[in-house]
């Protein structure tokens, strides 16, 4: 009897140790990822200061330079992507909530599900075939289109979810005053929920900012200047992807500075989303 009790206690202790170690290991990795970026990135930022955000990368094996043109490319592409994503995603989200049993909503839901499940590299391949090949070159526009497609499911789904959370009584009040459905939705439900819609768009922006695979073949790899919307460009994530894998110490250090920059931007967006609407699934 005693040995049985002892065994139970021991198994409990072992289980505790195992799950505690696993949990701490997971959280430690998260902290370590950020810590390494700080340790590697901060010195570069301190050394270059604001010039980091203006200059273009140095020659291989030379100075560090900066990621100025890439930062412009990133901002242009991500903003274009989230505006276009909002223009398509928000109305679709409203439609899916307001007419959930209409055939168009049902097809839209399936289409959205499909885009959400498709690996993001595939979006890049399709945009490559449809836009880059006919244009004859990768461009900021093609990159923005790929990012827009990857951000769409997040924007539409989050819009729909935030609208679904509005209590029915508001609609009932509007209907009882004789407002038609379109006025109810456009004048009352949507304005009431601007916060939810802003959350949805920010979430899409965050996704667009963090993605690398969709822009791999569509945005080009122009790190030294921003040439315009219809010309090759680059994003921070692309810069990291290419520069980190070169043997040049100065390019690796620039990549680390870009990693830190990307972490800061993503965190700002993520916590803005969290602040705007409490618990959000990423």
């Amino acid at each position, binding site marked *: 009897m005693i040995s049985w009790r002892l065994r*139970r*206690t021991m198994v*409990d202790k072992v289980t*505790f140790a195992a*799950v*505690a170690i*696993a*949990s701490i290991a*997971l*959280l430690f*990795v*998260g*902290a*370590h*990822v*950020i810590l390494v*970026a700080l340790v590697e990135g901060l010195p570069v930022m301190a050394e270059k200061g604001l010039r980091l955000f203006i200059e273009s990368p140095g020659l291989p094996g030379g100075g560090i330079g900066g990621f100025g043109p890439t930062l412009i490319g990133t901002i242009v592409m991500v903003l274009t992507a989230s505006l276009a994503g909002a223009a*398509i995603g928000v*109305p*679709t989200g409203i*439609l899916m909530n*307001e007419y959930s049993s*209409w055939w*168009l909503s049902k*097809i*839209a839901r399936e289409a959205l599900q*499909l*885009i959400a*499940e*498709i*690996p993001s*590299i*595939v979006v890049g*391949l*399709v945009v490559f*075939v*449809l836009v880059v090949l006919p244009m004859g070159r990768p461009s900021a526009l093609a990159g923005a289109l790929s990012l827009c497609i990857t951000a*769409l499911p997040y924007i539409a789904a989050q819009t729909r979810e935030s609208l679904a959370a509005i209590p029915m009584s508001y609609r009932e009040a509007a209907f009882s005053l004789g407002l038609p459905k*379109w006025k109810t*939705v456009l004048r009352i439900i949507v304005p009431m929920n601007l916060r939810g819609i802003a959350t949805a768009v920010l979430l899409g922006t*965050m996704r667009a900012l*963090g*993605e*690398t*695979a969709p822009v791999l*073949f569509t945005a080009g790899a122009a790190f030294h200047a921003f040439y315009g919307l219809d010309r090759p460009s680059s994003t921070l*994530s692309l810069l*990291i*992807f290419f520069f*980190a894998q070169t043997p040049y110490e100065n390019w690796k250090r620039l*990549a680390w500075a870009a*990693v830190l920059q*990307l*972490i800061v931007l*993503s*965190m700002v*967006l*993520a916590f803005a989303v*969290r602040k705007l609407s409490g618990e959000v*699934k990423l």
Partner: protein
Amino acid sequence: MKLDPLKILLSPAAIALIIVSASILAVLVYESLNTWIQDGIGFLLRLEWSPSEETYGTYGMLAPFLGSLVTAVIAMTVAGALSTALAVFVNEYAPKRFNNFISLALFSMAALPTIVYGMWGLSVFAPAVRQSGLASLCAMGSPTGYSVFTAGVVVGLMIAPFSAAMVLEAYRAVPFTYVEALHSLGAKGFERAGVILGLIKGSIIASALLSFGRAIGETTIVAMTVGNVINLPLCPFQPAHTITSLIASQFGNAYLYPGLQSRLLAGALVMVIGSSVSTSLGMWLARVTARRLKGESL
């Protein structure tokens, strides 16, 4: 029937979205048609990789195909084990005041872009794997630390916060009467966890399926850490390729080789189907489990 102005206003966006997703499928199918007609699924079963600029080369994708599967299985195992352990730790052992901290930490981890994990894998984890000497366990172990194992673990760590959110939600959705009953029987932590994990088995499998779907399509991390060699992934510490890393490294020049682009897009289509099936199955299973748990609480 009266036309609804709201429908007219909102429909164009929905139609645009449907056109986008239809054209993704159409492009994948149309551009890879050549491969399916000439070869069927033969290219997935062939090992030989010999590109040619003049003739249609041989592009056997068996090795990257298996590489994708092995990497995704490793990632799924890592994410599943860590998230289940975390759910047990948070709910049965950790003081309640840690809850906020842990959910904040998971949120921050989920917010990190994949390229950041890729950079960590490339500069921290791969060198650690190299120094650990684990590669000597394999006949053709990776001397650099870039291997299927490295890629799988880093992808698993990247997915773990998402998977943990799902398992934690399921764990907390277990009706409180069960938890109460377990406590009143004097069950210890591991016994309570055993019963509750049994109840939410469906959700755990569902989250594993979703992780698998995500891992199969992950490109950035894998391309940076898998080693990029066409190799059968017979041993986890060997460098290899996955379909995604193969696309990432070859697609840019694929137009130079007749036939390569079509093969790569066929590989992409296979991956889309695999990831889609796994994700849909996972979401269905999660719904069914959640509904059953709710039903039992009545």
